[in-house]
């Protein structure tokens, strides 16, 4: 009964979204506040209906109602409650429902808030948002309905891929989708601005909070995914340049570029066309990601919910939505004013350089992801584009970007002066060079590129701090004056500092971990040990463990340094009889910011018929920073979002230069 109610609520959400489009368009056309208000009401109601539908699907999963086809295919009654809930969005149908929930949710926030928006612009934006919602809801209702019943319900479900039964992965999709779909509001505002023919500083200011929110969600979502890959796939890597990872990374890169170009448009009125182009591109890449992940055109370690026939439908939605927006852009772009003038050395130029490099990086990731398809279509030859390609192309682009990052916030608008910026960055330059040289000299094995990366990270971190010190005039006058400036600094400035600092922290962790990780593997019988750098891993015993929906072998391993036990580790290997899969549960011991990472391998016949186990140990130095860095970046986004300038009535230009 509740399932039928869910199906009804889903269809109701579709009807309400269509009403949202119709009422908002009529409201704009007739200049009627009443009709536009009704359109906003429909947007709120559509979200309410979809929330009920989503709750109904969660209910079906929690109660293990196997008469629902989606539950039977993706759940199992012995699964722990958390994973029965998270299985709701673990399938094609369920994940599309989550996508729609986010889409209507953002539509509701746009309708309910956004009071500062001009009436006409808002009505069109709400209509566009409703149109996107209607298309995806129609797809869900007609081609991907999660509430379909089975005539012969099975006694037991087919379970969820055990790799996906994991706390980080349970919360990873909601964050990722909030990020992906948050870009839809930016897209709607861009299309609305093109329709209304007005793109100026005020528009850029309305777009910024949405971009910031979506970017922060996406940062957290991608980081959770990388963290999951790190400890669940069991070979110590965290980024594989996998098509699915790339699919989530491309919208992030575009959103990052958009955040920076929107600042130029907001503060200086320059680059309006480019900012609108990025606003449309960001959500187009989100939709491309949704298509790539589900269509099965590319193979991936994260492959999930693959269905080629429905992939074609998603491709159609992508082409129609993005295509019409870009066509509109092509018609309107020539009419846009080129905006403010600026000198070669200025903050505008620095932000444009940021955009050039991020766009080139996005193109690299896009081409690397799709090129195998292109070559296969053109010449029929299958090729692979993997990690080595991206390391040779993407990484140098980002290294140049990292060199430029600290300069940006130190240059003045319109016409900047390099020498004070250089002077402020002398500590960062000195420290960066020293750290790089020290790494080259002191760390074994000697690695030139990784040392360069460490130098860059010091340059970024100290550069971000130097910029903050410059803003509050630290050491340039009385401390009380600095403290006063510290308190008065807008949150947006702190957001910049935090995000750039987070980037430096990430680069530090990523380079150190990649360059100087230690690995060792040995077959061990109980009582034997394995050396990983300064660590000694002693295998105490291996015992069978009965889990709720799996059988496991769990090892007890004592990790010792200088003869002292520091950690007791329990890596295990799980067998899930429901799906017939085996997974490896890694044990991680965190020592300061580094990880001792231990994997229990398969059992092998040993001497005298007793078993031995393959044990792999990894020493991942500073690995924690890889995940802390992006967390600091996301925090920067959130801090920036609380800036009162974003919350105040927008539209007023404030331009006073010191």
């Amino acid at each position, binding site marked *: 009964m509740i399932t039928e109610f869910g199906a009804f609520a889903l269809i109701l959400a579709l009807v309400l979204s269509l009403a949202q489009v119709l009422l908002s368009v009529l409201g704009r056309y007739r200049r009627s506040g009443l009709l536009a208000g009704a359109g906003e009401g429909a947007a709120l109601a559509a979200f309410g209906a979809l929330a009920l539908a989503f709750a109904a699907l969660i209910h079906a999963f929690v109660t293990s109602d196997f008469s629902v086809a989606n539950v039977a295919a993706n759940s199992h009654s012995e699964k722990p409650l958390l994973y029965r809930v998270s299985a709701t969005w673990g399938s094609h149908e369920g994940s599309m429902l989550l996508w729609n929930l986010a889409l209507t949710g953002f539509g509701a926030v746009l309708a309910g808030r956004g009071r500062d928006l001009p009436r006409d612009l808002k009505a069109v934006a709400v209509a566009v948002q409703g149109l996107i919602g209607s298309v995806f809801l129609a797809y869900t209702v007609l081609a991907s309905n999660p509430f379909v019943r089975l005539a012969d319900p099975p006694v037991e479900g087919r379970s969820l891929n055990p790799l996906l039964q994991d706390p980080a992965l349970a919360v990873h999709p909601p964050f990722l989708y909030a990020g992906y779909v948050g870009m839809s509001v930016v897209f709607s505002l861009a299309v609305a601005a093109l329709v209304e023919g007005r793109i100026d500083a005020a528009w850029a200011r309305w777009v910024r909070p949405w971009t910031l929110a979506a970017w922060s969600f996406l940062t957290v979502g991608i980081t959770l995914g990388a963290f999951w890959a790190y400890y669940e796939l069991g*070979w110590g890597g965290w980024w594989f340049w996998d098509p699915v990872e790339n699919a989530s990374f491309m919208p992030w890169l575009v959103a990052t570029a958009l955040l920076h170009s929107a600042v130029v448009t907001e503060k200086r009125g320059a680059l309006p066309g480019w900012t609108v182009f990025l606003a449309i591109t960001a959500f187009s890449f989100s939709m491309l990601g949704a298509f790539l992940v589900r269509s099965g055109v*590319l193979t991936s370690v994260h492959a999930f919910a693959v269905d080629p026939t429905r992939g074609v439908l998603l491709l159609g939605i992508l082409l129609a939505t993005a295509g019409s927006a870009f066509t509109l852009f092509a018609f309107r772009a020539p009419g846009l004013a080129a905006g403010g003038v600026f000198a070669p050395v200025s903050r505008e130029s620095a932000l444009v350089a940021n955009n050039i490099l991020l766009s*080139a990086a996005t193109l690299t990731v896009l081409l690397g992801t799709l090129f195998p398809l292109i070559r296969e279509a053109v010449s029929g030859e299958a090729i*692979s584009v993997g990690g080595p*390609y991206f390391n040779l192309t993407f990484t140098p682009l980002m290294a140049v970007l990292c060199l430029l990052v600290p300069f940006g916030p130190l240059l003045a608008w319109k016409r900047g002066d390099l020498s004070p910026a250089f002077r402020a960055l002398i500590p960062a330059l000195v420290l960066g060079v020293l750290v790089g040289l020290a790494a080259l000299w002191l760390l074994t094995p000697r690695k030139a590129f990784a040392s360069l990366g460490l130098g860059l990270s010091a340059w970024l971190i100290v550069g971000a701090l130097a910029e903050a010190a410059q803003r509050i005039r630290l050491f340039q006058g009385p401390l009380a004056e600095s403290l006063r400036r510290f308190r008065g600094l807008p949150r947006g400035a702190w957001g910049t500092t935090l995000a750039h600092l987070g980037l430096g922290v990430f680069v530090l962790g990523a380079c150190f971990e990649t360059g100087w990780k230690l690995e060792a593997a040995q077959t061990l019988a109980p009582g034997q040990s394995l050396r990983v750098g300064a660590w000694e891993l002693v295998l105490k015993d291996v015992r069978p463990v009965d889990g709720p929906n799996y059988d496991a072998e769990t090892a007890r391993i004592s990790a010792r340094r200088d003869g002292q036990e520091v950690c007791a580790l329990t890596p295990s290997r799980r067998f899930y009889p429901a799906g017939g899969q085996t997974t490896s549960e890694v044990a991680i011991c965190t020592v300061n910011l580094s990880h001792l990472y231990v994997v229990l391998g398969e059992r092998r016949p040993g001497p005298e018929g007793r078993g031995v186990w393959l044990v792999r140990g990894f020493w991942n130095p500073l690995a924690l920073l890889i995940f802390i860095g992006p967390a600091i970046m996301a925090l920067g986004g959130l801090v920036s979002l609380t800036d009162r300038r974003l919350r105040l009535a927008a539209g007023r230009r404030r331009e006073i230069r*010191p």
Partner: protein
Amino acid sequence: MPLAVALAAALCLAAASDPAERLPDPTQEARARALFQEVRCMVCQNESIADSEAGLAVDLRRLVRERIASGQDDAQVRGWLVDRYGEFVLLRPSFSWANLALWLAPLAAVIAGVLALAAHLRRPVLPDAALTEAEARRLSDLLAGTDGHDPALKSSRDDPNA
């Protein structure tokens, strides 16, 4: 000293592989390990043979090690892999005419961007249009109520450029 460092690096790499598969010569083993990173495990979902426990990956690792032990250099091993499985097996696509767009696109994008920026900077600067009489009157009205300060700013602390 450099030799000792190189040897330590080779040992540390070699130690990570399954001891049942390892080559006795540490430098050869290090070369094999570096090659594994570039070879696709074709039955897996987008993994290199260095990371995979699949049967095919184990076989390919053994075959690559055999070839390295018999004295072939990296290019010969790669060539043998491509003859046997096609270019699909290499995770680093070859630098060939067919892949030219793939390798040159990042650089081309940066050059195009820099040229666009240069064109933007060289744009002739149009003189600001003078205010009409009505605009001038409205401006002085607006400024009169604010003592010359931007009404949107409460204090200098709000200045985004401070």
